């Protein structure tokens, strides 16, 4: 711990048109942890990430990344959007998509070259996709597409990662590959925030969690925070929970937020 938090959010409020999506959210994220952002559909989990990254305007609040503004810390941040957010029929191949992770580092005029190609292949290799580097992206399975997205985030060589539902609709093999990768990132001292909605795996995957539903319900180490009372407050009264084998009421995509 260097004393500077990788991510500090205070007082964050976000609204779409007139509807408030997030109210008064504040938390600090410790370094080198895997953090799950948990909450029901429409709770504002994706919006939280997008507001931190400046992709949606915030009504109020402060975001500080490694002690500075996102603008100045951009190169230290990696982002994996939801898989459905892009058109997979786009005329490009897997390696090319991974190299897009370097565009932010290249500045205005430099083009990706041999160095970016080498790094791109290395990142594809880390997610077990190097055999598919030349494959058109629509020819990949959902899980493979997700791994390409992950490889692209690795190519960003960031210290703080935001991943929006990387486990949504992927096969078991990909889920395992992603978890392996998250642990690898963690062992390198990187901090990873993951939007997640399978309650059954929360305790197994994450060191810390943020419980979100329109506001921050609770935040902290998973073993202290992932309690029936907190989940009740996050998901409302309808949820039947057996600890350690939680039912997952919000399953099935979260594209709306």
């Amino acid at each position, binding site marked *: 711990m260097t004393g500077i938090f990788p991510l500090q959010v205070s007082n964050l409020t976000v609204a779409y048109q007139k509807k408030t999506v997030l109210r008064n959210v504040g938390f600090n994220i410790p370094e080198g942890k895997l953090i799950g952002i948990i909450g029901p559909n429409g709770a504002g989990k994706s919006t939280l990430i*997008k507001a931190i*990254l*400046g*992709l949606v305007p915030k009504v109020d609040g402060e975001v500080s990344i490694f002690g500075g503004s996102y*603008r100045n810390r*951009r190169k230290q*941040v990696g*982002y994996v*959007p939801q898989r459905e*957010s*892009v*058109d997979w029929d*786009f*005329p*490009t*191949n897997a390696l090319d*998509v991974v190299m*897009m992770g370097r*565009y*932010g580092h*290249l500045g*205005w*005029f430099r*083009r*990706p070259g041999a160095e970016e190609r080498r790094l791109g292949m290395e990142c594809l290799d880390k997610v077990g996709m190097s055999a598919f580097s030349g494959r*058109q992206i629509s020819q990949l399975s959902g899980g493979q597409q997700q791994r390409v997205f992950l490889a*692209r985030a690795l190519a960003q060589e960031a210290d703080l990662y935001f991943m929006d539902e990387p486990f949504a609709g992927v096969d078991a093999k990909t889920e395992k590959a992603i978890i392996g990768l998250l642990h690898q990132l963690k062992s390198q001292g990187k901090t990873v925030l993951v939007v997640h909605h399978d309650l059954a795996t929360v305790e197994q995957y994450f060191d810390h969690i943020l419980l979100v539903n329109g506001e921050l319900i609770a935040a902290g180490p998973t073993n202290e925070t992932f309690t029936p009372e907190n989940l009740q407050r996050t998901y409302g009264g309808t949820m039947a929970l057996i600890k350690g084998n939680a039912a997952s009421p919000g399953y099935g995509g979260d594209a709306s937020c």
Partner: protein
Amino acid sequence: MADFWIILTGTLAAASCGILGCFLILRRMALVGDAISHSVLPGIAFAFLLSDSRDSVFMLAGAAVFGLITVFLIQFLQRGGLQADASIGIVFTALFAFGVILISRNASHIDLDLDCVLFGEIAYVQWDTWILNGYDLGPSAVWMLGGTLLLIVLCVGLFYKQFKLCAFDPALALACGIPVALFHYLLMGLVSVSTVASFESVGAILVVGMLIIPAATAYLLTDRLSVMLLYSVVAGAVSSAGGYYAAVWLDSSIAGAMIVTAGILFLLAFIFSPLHGVAARYLKRRRLKSAAA
């Protein structure tokens, strides 16, 4: 010489439109291109009225301004809660009609013919030459379109990675610090300029065909963006040359024949493209079926 100039004019127009059309198609904004090509009309009319001449620079500037106004208005209506297609329909028809009024009201004292605006006069490009210090430098349409194509190639070449990422994944582009809005308006500005540069030859209506059809043809033939851009230019050039000779043979409208040729090329690609063609897909399905049986 007439054949040469007409085909060159058509090719330059098709190449400019084709390159931009690729990005419009990939961003699912083909309709916005359609809208811009129509709503630049009042810009052209204003340029005529203000400058009292057919000075190309004025026309391009007026068109670019109205093109950006169009994009801005469409987004404004959408943000106000109107559906995207309705916003586009309202803005471009209203602006286009406004342009028609401006031109017909002032037709008597400006040298601008509505038919020419709508359908182009590519057959006459060779007579409207650019004369500098007494030297005949060739058709002015060729100069204007050549300059436009150069501008487009320069912008797209210089900012290729930005245009590409903005088209594929605008969220990542924004997160990377790429000014997505700036490149959006740059693309729309270029579409406006190329539309106007082309309109004298092919007209405001058929220019939409040049924006969309060669790019759509190229989309079916490759899995790489850079190759798609190249193919769209080739498809445009083949359409111009093929269309010209078809028009001579049929004794018909040249611009019309060019777009019909582009349409035929698209149809061929749609059926026979080895990558995404209907025939290839059918054969693949049959192979899978027989393999499964």
